[in-house]
């Protein structure tokens, strides 16, 4: 018998698989396909204080092995998430959920985090300082160590639950940003968010996305994610949630060996809605093949 369980910031997960924010809505689309309680957890759609309609269409482009998105944080706003989405979620998901939050000022991050911290269903706050698809927020906080530290400090002060900071790969030195968050009391880090990319429409000879750039995700970015998790693991002592292009049980193991305590699966859900159950089905067999008995023992094993 293999043991898939891990502990993330003091909360026990039956397995390290967390469906990634922005690819899983508030769970309902997948709940009609399989029992969400199979998952370790999932991170719900990036939530802001006010409702957001998102960016103009088209919002999606692609490349071999990946996709670009410029959705722009379309969400119903934190109040509707609390009054409608969380009660609906409670009917299909009995585990702690990860609350993914985004803001356009530190005061906004603080307000949303306070509101969601008070929700019984929320296990962790995943503070997104790395969204590349909005102006004047998101990634602006994640690309500077001082700003990342300021958000972390402000949010940490008002939350009782574990605060996980979601980091951007679009930075010079991700280890430096990671240390800045750890120094201000972050309980964990999740990385990587999407890589900034661009595609043109050759008919118009202009950018395909009206937002111009989009965030690249999918298996194309897996090696970049592994490298950054490796670097951050060497720089901090707090747990890391590794993500970026994971689509198989082998990828989960590789990511954990690089330093991840848990992992998130994102784009893979979009091309295969059963990606998470498929990975979970395969994990015991793949662990056995590589002589792994307890998944929690392999974190950082490659160092």
């Amino acid at each position, binding site marked *: 018998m293999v043991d898939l369980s891990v502990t993330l910031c003091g909360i026990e997960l039956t397995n390290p698989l967390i469906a990634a924010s*922005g*690819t*899983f*809505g508030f769970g309902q*689309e*997948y709940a*009609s*396909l399989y029992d969400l309680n199979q998952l370790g957890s999932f991170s719900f*759609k990036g939530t802001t204080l006010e409702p957001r*309609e*998102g960016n103009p*269409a*088209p*919002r*999606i*482009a*692609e*490349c*071999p*092995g*990946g*996709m670009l*998105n410029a*959705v722009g944080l*379309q969400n119903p706003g934190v109040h509707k998430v609390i009054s409608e989405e969380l009660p609906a979620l409670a009917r299909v998901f009995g585990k702690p959920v990860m609350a993914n939050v985004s803001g356009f000022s530190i005061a906004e991050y603080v307000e949303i985090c306070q509101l969601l911290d008070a929700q019984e269903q929320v296990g962790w706050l995943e503070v997104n300082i790395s969204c590349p698809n909005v102006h004047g927020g998101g990634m602006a906080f994640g690309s500077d160590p001082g700003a990342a530290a300021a958000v972390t400090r402000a949010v940490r002060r008002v939350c009782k639950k574990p605060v996980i900071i979601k980091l951007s790969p679009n930075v010079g030195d991700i280890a430096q940003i990671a240390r800045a968050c750890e120094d201000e009391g972050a309980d964990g880090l999740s990385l990587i968010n999407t890589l900034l990319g661009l595609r043109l429409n050759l008919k118009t000879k202009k950018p395909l996305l009206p937002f111009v750039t989009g965030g690249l995700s*999918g*298996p194309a970015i897996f090696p970049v994610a592994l490298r950054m998790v490796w670097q951050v693991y060497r720089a901090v002592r707090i747990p890391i949630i590794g993500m970026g292009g994971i689509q198989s049980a082998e990828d989960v193991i590789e990511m954990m060996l690089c330093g991840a305590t848990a992992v998130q699966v994102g784009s893979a*859900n*979009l*091309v*295969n*809605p*059963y990606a998470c159950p498929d990975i979970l089905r395969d994990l015991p067999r793949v662990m056995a093949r590589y002589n792994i008995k307890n998944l929690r023992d392999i974190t950082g094993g490659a160092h």
Partner: protein
Amino acid sequence: MKQTVWTIQDNTRIARDTWRMRFSGDSEAFIKPGQFLNLSLDVYYLRRPFSVFDWAPGQASIIYKVLGRGTEHMTCLQPGARLDVLCGLGNGFSLDTGARRPLLLGGGAGIPPLYRLCRELAGQGRLVQVALGFGGADEIFLAEEFRALGAQVSVATMDGSAGLRGTALDACDFTQADFFHACGPTAMLKALCAQAGIPGEVSLEERMGCGFGACMGCTVITRQGPQRVCKEGPVFSREVLGW
């Protein structure tokens, strides 16, 4: 929605750059004309959406236009090949409008989903008018099949090589209709809504990430707020769109 694997039965060219692909496999997730499927193709990371042309227990078919690398690749697929498909996606056309004389208006690649709709409306005893638009005479497809359903069919071509010169819009008679169902290029749909003084609905197309409502990639802003083309759509009433 249902994920399943379909086997190609035949894959045939039916007009210039226009092919029909018939599959055997589970099609029970389809309940309404205008719904779509999302095909996994070897040449792309993301799936590609196609409206369902027709289905019956254990079989389904699509009609596709060759527009790029993915559809070019599809023309090379042989009977017996298996494709991973998400089927039964989207809302589909309304079958309960109460209209006595529905008008079906299709432009090019937007025509296929109207065929099954026509069959169902004709089966309800409605007097169906069909207006079809193509680039030229060699691109015409399905016109005879619509006529065989008892519909009154008119055709327009952009180059005037068959039927009236112009778009499907030039081939229809609004005075003989009390509701429209349309699918085709966005410019045509908007022009239709501007000209038609009757209620109606249009099927929209948008680039999609997932096709089942998870990624917010295909959102359109409507009078009822942001709506997903893949989930609340692809068919929207003109009132909801404000067109």
